[in-house]
């Protein structure tokens, strides 16, 4: 339909790619340097005296920087969080989209209203709640409170509104109950939306910084963002160690991303569905 990409176009594409890759590459290179070399001015492009010391600092088990453990914690928290969001949001979204009951409009408007309350308002009170529930420094603090957000419900409701009613009506006439209709008919038809919501919830949880920074404190219980922040504070100017920590944090994510990037991108693309 349109003209073939020009040379200028390719230059642009490649420059942008370099812009993404070079900082990451620099991070990896630095993690093999010695402290002295990492502070050299001008910087050396290739480590003159390559050393694995920095990786030793962040990979030794039982050390103070269990970066892989943090990655695991992050992964577990984000996965459980996404699962919880998908379950509760699809159930609630279905009820709000397809069922008639007293108070429906009120409940929906109320939920929708909270969509516009910024998260930091809940920071202090939810922290106290975590303290009272005994959830501070546990996975639960990362998994559960965030699942109360309005976005998932709203998103699923919009999607269910678009599914034709005939599907369920037939089943209901056959005597199936609402739960069977929901799990056997509705959910299988909602896979793309469920996938999108999973991706978005996972990413939001994975990237969350403020909350885990304050609700977690044991070194082995931190998530990546919280742990890396602590690592930076503890090593101040020992950049090879800091970069090694960042590298160890980045690599598994990037590998995972290579395999699921299509779903991630499709998921994000659909987040604007109600623009």
């Amino acid at each position, binding site marked *: *339909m*349109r003209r073939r*990409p020009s040379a200028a176009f390719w230059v642009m*594409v490649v420059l942008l790619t370099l812009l993404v890759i070079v*900082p990451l590459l*620099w*991070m990896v290179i630095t993690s093999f340097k010695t402290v002295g070399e990492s502070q050299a*001015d*001008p910087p050396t492009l290739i480590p003159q005296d390559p050393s694995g010391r920095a990786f030793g600092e962040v990979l030794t088990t039982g050390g103070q920087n269990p970066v892989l453990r943090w990655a695991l914690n992050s992964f577990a928290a984000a996965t459980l969080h996404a699962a919880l969001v998908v379950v509760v949001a699809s*159930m*609630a979204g279905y*009820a*709000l989209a397809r069922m008639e009951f007293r108070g429906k409009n009120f*409940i929906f408007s109320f*939920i929708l209203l*909270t969509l516009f309350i*910024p*998260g*930091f*308002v*809940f920071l*202090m*009170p*939810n922290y106290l*709640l975590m*303290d009272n529930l005994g959830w501070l420094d546990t996975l639960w603090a990362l998994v559960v409170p965030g699942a*109360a957000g*309005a976005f998932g419900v709203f998103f699923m409701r919009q999607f269910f*509104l*678009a599914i*034709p*009613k005939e599907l369920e009506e037939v089943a*209901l*006439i056959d005597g199936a109950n*609402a739960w069977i209709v*929901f799990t056997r008919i509705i959910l299988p038809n909602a*896979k793309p*939306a469920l996938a999108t919501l999973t991706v978005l919830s996972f990413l939001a949880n*994975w990237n969350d*910084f*403020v909350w885990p920074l304050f609700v977690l404190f044991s070194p082995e219980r931190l998530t990546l*963002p919280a*742990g*890396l*922040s602590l690592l930076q504070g503890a090593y101040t100017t020992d950049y090879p160690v*800091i*970069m090694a920590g*960042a590298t160890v*944090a*980045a690599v598994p994510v990037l590998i995972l*991303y*290579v395999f699921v*990037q299509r779903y*991630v*991108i499709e998921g*994000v*693309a659909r*987040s*604007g569905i109600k*623009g």
Partner: protein
Amino acid sequence: MAAEASAGTLRRRRARASTGVRGYGRATPYLFLAPYLLLFVLFVIGPAIFGIWMSLHDWDFQLPGKPFVGLQNYKDLFDPLSATAEPFWHGMRATGIFTLASVPFLVVVPLGLAVLLNRKFPGRTFFRAVYFAPYVLGVAVIGLMFRYILDTTFGILNAFLGVFGIPEIGWTTEQPWAFVALVAVTVWWTAGFNAIIFLAGLQDIPAEQYEAAELDGANTWQQFRNVTLPGLRPVTVFIVTITLLASANMFGQALLITQGGPGDTTRTALMVITDTGFSQFRMGQASAMSYLLAICLSIVALITFALMRERKS
């Protein structure tokens, strides 16, 4: 906007479906809603109200005494002689500057990226994935990485610029460079995210509209002005809104890269709130701050919406 693949074909029939499905017990809807509502009441409604209650106290959660202070925490924020007013308003200023400076770039750059990626070219999926990749790394990796890259004396950016004879710039220690750095890093980190949403919007614009414009003799720029931009309006509103919210919540970049400096110029409102609440354990004051910030934010959001609507008419 972007339609679901599977739902798309079914959507046309949707108009017929007017009322909900019958054939379930009276309690059923509530049972479906119950799990979410439980979370909603416990972690949204309860805390939102409880936060207001906290903000009326000198609330230190580890002490038995939590004296009631009425509206004092709010009054203090407007009393230049109080301990909270100065840090809070400095934080508001930092957040405000960052938001004003970052939102335009976080809308325009991704739009450009999206237009670029909307072309058909070999390796397109690959490049799309590359541009999005920074987002999945998370703010911590990005913060640590750029803190080093942006270092004044041994950062590679200054070394690179030095090749062109540009003197050392204090990216993390001087203004306005600290804000420039924070905005640039944020663009580097999240442009891919917004671009993907724009891209979905672009792909939703029917090809016929471009064909029609081309028949009318519109050149590429005119097509962009008259077809692309109007077609993207709903996505743009969405992106502006989420970006505005994200920028107002700025925290990680400033904490990890500039540490709030130089001085307290990049110490954002959220940093002040968490510091007051979690480090000084003055959660009452911190709650008051967050409500005030929320009110300011909603005013900004209303103004933005009003402006966007005006442009529309």
